[in-house]
């Protein structure tokens, strides 16, 4: 154990003196947090709206202000002809246009169904879908009010009343931060360990150490320990920063959160170690690390694309992506305040992954050293 500490101390000093590693360990987490936290935002607010009110009645004005008061739409223009809408749309002045038909107030008072037209700029399909969702929410709410105001009108008996739990504002940052945490943890842990070990091979110091009476285990423990400490610190830092910047709640226990992060990072370090036994140069190690950890974490963990909507084959692949389990545990602990039992499955999966990869790395290393 003393020897492991000697290796660990040396590694710490090396990290402190190695600018490149320091950059990977400290700069990247901050950079990604800011980049993804602010830029990768699926929320749409302040949709520029033009209104063509052909009815000009108290009812039509109510409808328009319902749009504006929803907070999602900003009325930027009042128009009187369809041509004006086309012009505004072309000049990118507006994303949507609301056309209130003549006779709205009369029909509503009579209890006759009315159609309100909304024109949406569909250049960006995602945005269009979201805007459409907002618009129909506003319309549904308003029409429910008319129905109550006009007795005898055909009212729907069952009404959908959506309530979104854990993230009532549907802020996508809350959904993204756990993914970001998984991503950052993977980068720092896998890349730094893989590079650190391969660098010793490249420089020939590995051979020197192997000539010394130090076993595989103390060497590995000593080698990984500093990276574990650093990536753990980075992960906690990301959580704290997200609490400040994005109002990330930590509804569950911090201990559970730390346990999940520790298990996940342990697996990631083992992964880096395993890569180092396969790669002979830092470049190769970096590329393998990129392919085997960045991409799956980004694409196959449910970070950005929901697993349930992936093709079946890919869904099976996600079972070996540790970030998948980590995300479930993280979202559970952070957003739902889940207790140990609720995330036990995910934690077990993470532990299993770490154990398997560690064994693989140990086997490869033994073979390499023998």
């Amino acid at each position, binding site marked *: 154990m003393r020897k492991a500490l000697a290796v660990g101390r040396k590694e710490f000093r090396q990290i402190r003196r190695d600018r490149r590693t320091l950059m990977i360990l400290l700069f990247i987490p901050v950079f990604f947090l800011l980049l993804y936290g602010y830029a990768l935002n699926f929320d749409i607010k302040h949709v520029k709206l033009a209104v063509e009110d052909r009815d000009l009645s108290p009812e039509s004005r109510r409808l328009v202000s319902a749009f504006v008061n929803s907070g999602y739409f900003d009325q930027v223009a009042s128009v009187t002809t369809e041509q004006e809408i086309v012009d505004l749309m072309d000049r990118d002045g507006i994303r949507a246009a609301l056309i209130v038909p003549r006779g709205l107030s009369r029909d509503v008072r009579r209890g006759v169904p009315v159609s309100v037209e909304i024109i949406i700029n569909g250049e960006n399909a995602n945005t269009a879908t979201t805007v459409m969702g907002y618009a129909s929410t506003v319309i549904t709410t308003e029409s429910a009010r008319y129905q109550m105001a006009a007795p005898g009108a055909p009212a729907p008996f069952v009404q959908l009343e959506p309530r979104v739990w854990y993230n009532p504002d549907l802020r996508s940052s809350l959904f993204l931060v756990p993914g970001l945490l998984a991503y950052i943890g993977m980068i720092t842990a896998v890349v730094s360990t893989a590079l650190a070990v391969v660098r010793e091979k490249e420089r020939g110091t590995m051979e020197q150490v192997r000539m010394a*009476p130090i076993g595989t285990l103390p060497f590995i423990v000593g080698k990984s320990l500093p990276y574990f400490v650093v990536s753990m610190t980075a992960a906690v830092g990301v959580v704290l920063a997200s609490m400040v910047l994005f109002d990330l709640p930590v509804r569950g226990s911090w201990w559970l959160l730390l346990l999940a992060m520790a298990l996940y990072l342990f697996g990631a370090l083992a992964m880096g170690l395993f890569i180092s036994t396969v790669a002979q140069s830092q470049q190769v190690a970096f590329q393998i690390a990129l392919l085997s950890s960045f991409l799956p974490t980004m694409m196959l963990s449910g970070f950005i694309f929901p697993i349930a909507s992936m093709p079946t084959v890919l869904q099976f692949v996600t079972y070996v992506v540790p970030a998948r389990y980590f995300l479930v545990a993280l979202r559970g602990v952070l957003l739902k305040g889940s207790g140990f039992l609720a995330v036990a499955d995910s934690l077990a999966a993470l532990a299993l992954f770490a154990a398997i990869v560690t064994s693989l790395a140990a086997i490869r290393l033994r073979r390499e050293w023998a």
Partner: protein
Amino acid sequence: MTPAITVSRLTRRFGDFIAVDDVSFDVRQGEIFGFLGANGAGKSTTIRMLCGLLRPTSGTATVGGVDVARDPEAVKLRIGYMSQKFSLYEALTVEQNIRFFGGVYGLEGERFATRRAFALEMAGLVGREKTPTRDLAGGWRQRLALGCAILHEPPIVFLDEPTGGVDPVSRRQFWRLIDHLSQQGTTVLVTTHYLDEAEHCHRIAVMNAGKLAALGTTHELKQVFAGRPIMEVQAPSAVAAMRALELLPEVEKTSLFGTAVHAVLRSRDTTAASVVAGLRASGVTATSVVPVEPSLEDVFLDLVERASA
């Protein structure tokens, strides 16, 4: 006295390639044992087996009384190893490197303090403990690497081309350190390319294509030229002289030595005068023809040529 290293019929294959082929020798305690050979002759593979890094395919080797195949970890406690790469951590300072290797060898307290002082003294780096290793010149780095490799006072030291890429003055200093170690009873097994360095060794093993081509003191090795005197020939054109010499029946073979030609003669009876006469017959005027003692380089070339013939 039991030998420090015993090697018996040691063989290592890599697939079809036989890197070390049935090699046997002993190294006495306190001896400086030189390993000569071209690149790929099997020197480093032999050393790696002796250090317990590589398993022999067949044959046995004991280092410090321990069988390397059976207990490689115990071997590591008894040896120091330094390679041509001077494998120090370049980003770390002199002090931090010494601390790291001290830690890896399990040195502590008083003992570590003494050995640390020894290593700094030996490397001539007292007062420069805080210098990053990458800022050191080759000679210092090399001596520091040696210091780190022998921090734990191993009875046996392996040096794999320790003087590669180091200036002549530093090389001389380094060999003084090796002499000193040997006088204190440390066994040193050293591989080198430099034939002048081999003269420092008590005994030399010449390896060629995985086999042991010759083994002995420099004096013994030079006995291959007993009855085959060597003439050093100087002429305006060394190449023309070499061609003319090759044609003489009394010349066995020739090789170029700087601006001179060494001609190995078939018999002691051939005189310098007859060589001069023979050359003149081919139209080459020799400026001097003198008998010389065989150098290690002559020996080495002769051994390698005969082994590959």
